[in-house]
């Protein structure tokens, strides 16, 4: 048993982080916030070139031929960078929708009653007729709501989509942890860094504990692909991302409540992702059923 990243996996994660820092740094992030609803097609193609969408497609079909663990590492980095766009929907369409694998085609998917990035997409999978635009809580994720009568409700989500979303949540938890610790080290009050105060220290410690617990759950689910492991991973990753972002906001104090701080963007995206795939109810019920199976 070697439940640690291989050298290749570490290199893949580092490469993805480097690409995203170069192509989607803080300036690009804030520019995206100022131009809501617009998807950066050039960046999308760059992701395609880097193999982000074709990662799990067999080499014979023009893909990279890697597995779920590698996809999870790439999605963790996308989450850490707060990369916008229907990432999982396009990734899952690689091989099925022409151009998805290379990033030429942007693919959105109906998930329950919600569709992300409907207008920016070239192809929409699922029944989206009559969908109405919402004023989206997350400035980086345009949302439509499908008519309730046509909605499939819960129970239809592909477990792989749930796992990739959990990986993005893990990335968010990692990033807000970095932001919180950075602020706790630099911000001084009462003559010392606020990170020296136990109350702040413990917020940061709890943030890390939730992140590392979510990390092993997400990675293990990527190895086993067991639906119960995936359900567990999503519950822990949702918790790590949402509570982590809230704690990060708290550590930032008044600054955390401003539009200029990035914390709210992470929290809002975490809330959007937590709604995907039937939300936590479905995962909790699946795990409960497994207990008595």
């Amino acid at each position, binding site marked *: *048993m*070697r*439940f*640690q*990243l*291989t050298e290749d*996996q570490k290199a893949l994660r580092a490469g993805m982080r480097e690409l995203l820092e170069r192509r989607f740094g803080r300036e690009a992030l804030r520019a995206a916030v100022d131009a809501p609803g617009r998807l950066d097609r050039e960046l999308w193609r760059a992701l395609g070139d880097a193999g982000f969408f074709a990662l799990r497609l067999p080499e014979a079909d023009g893909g990279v031929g890697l597995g779920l*663990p590698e996809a999870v590492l790439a999605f963790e980095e996308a989450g850490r960078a707060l990369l916008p766009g229907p990432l999982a929907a396009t990734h899952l369409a690689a091989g099925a929708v022409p151009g998805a694998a290379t990033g030429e085609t942007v693919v959105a998917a109906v998930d329950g009653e919600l569709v992300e990035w409907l207008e920016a997409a070239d192809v929409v999978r699922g029944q989206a007729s009559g969908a109405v635009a919402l004023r989206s809580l997350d400035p980086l994720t345009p949302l439509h709501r499908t008519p309730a009568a046509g909605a499939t409700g819960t129970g239809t989500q592909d477990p792989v989509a749930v796992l990739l979303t959990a990986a993005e949540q893990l990335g968010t938890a990692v990033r807000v942890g970095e932001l919180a*610790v950075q602020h*706790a*080290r630099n911000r001084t009050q009462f003559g*010392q*860094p606020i*990170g*020296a*105060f*136990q109350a*702040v*220290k*413990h917020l*940061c*410690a*709890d943030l*890390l*504990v939730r992140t*590392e*617990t*979510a990390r*092993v*759950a997400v*990675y*293990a689910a*990527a*190895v*086993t692909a067991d639906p*119960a*492991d995936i*359900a*567990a*991973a999503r*519950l*822990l990753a949702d918790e790590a991302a949402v509570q982590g972002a809230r704690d990060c906001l708290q550590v930032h104090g008044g600054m955390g409540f401003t539009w200029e701080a990035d914390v709210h963007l992470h929290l809002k995206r975490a809330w959007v992702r937590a709604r995907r795939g039937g939300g936590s*109810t479905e*995962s*909790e*019920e*699946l*795990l*409960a*059923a*497994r*207990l*008595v199976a």
Partner: protein
Amino acid sequence: MDLSYTPEEEDFRARLRDWLAKALPTLPAKPSPADWPGRRAYDLGWQRMLYDAGYADVHWDASPTTRLIFLEETERAGAPYVGANFVGLLHAGPTVAAEGTAEQRARWLPPILRGEEVWCQGFSEPGAGSDLAALRTRAWRDGDDYVVSGSKIWTSHAEVADWCELLVRTDPDVPKHKGITWLAMPMDADGITVRPLRTLAGSAEFAEVFLDEVRVPAGNRVGAENDGWRVTMVTLSFERGTAFVGEVVACRRVLAELARAARENGCWDDPVLRRRLGRLEAEFRALWRLTQWNVSEAEANGGVPGAGGSVFKLRYSHARQELYDTAADVLGPAALDLDRPWVLDRLSALSYTIAAGTSQIQRNIVAERILGLPKGR
């Protein structure tokens, strides 16, 4: 990332499983929790069986993964836990093995492995719990002996121990971490008084130990004089390493039992309770993965447990309390009946966020040693 085991590891698992199936039915009846001499005999007897079968030193010599398999399989089979051998096998033994002289290893290690001697831990004091280095029990050098006076508290197994791993202050005039020495004290020496402490669970799980000019031979010192803090840190990293593996397996079994009980008494139909059980299942699956991750990391680092132990301990001790609180909701009014299963476990789980470093101390460790936040108030 790989969660599969090597053929050698699978072979170890299969042989152990076979042996457990044959050995466990030959065990005597389990003594009552209040019967300390009975518990000592039972736990030492089990250790002797492990010794005769070649499994006694699995905590010391085996690879972390082999140890993980051992703890997983013994718990699954319902085998006894280390019990009274805990300090010997998981604290004092590894410390003597790492820091002791050849003579000390030859004197103390074989009796621990053969199930002949029980150790207890003399670390905490009434005035030095979480602030362990503030301990005040004094030791003076007098000829070939140290003379020790002071008191210790929360000493598990003190009533039936042969040896105590004792921290004493040998130099009061230097910073508190620097004047501490690690001694192996024979529990039958003159001047030792053991007074059992009754816990909130009603049982006497640990004791106060009073030391009145107890003479300990200088040859019983492990490590250099005044170097005891460093020696102790070696011990504590073992404590937070794999100490809880068997318990995580046990908690997962309890959770499945809880779900079955909930189905039988109808509270399974309550979606709030059902979802809570589902969330606990997610929690304990993750804790098992965290264990595997930490063990793999230790294996990669030459067997040394990393700081991940604090992450695990924090999360696990709270999850265990949540598990038994949920059990109380499944039990309903029976949760107030001490004769029902899980009720005493709920009480004893209260110690998990305190023992072996409180959750608050663990958070400080995570914040300062992993996240690099400054020390402060």
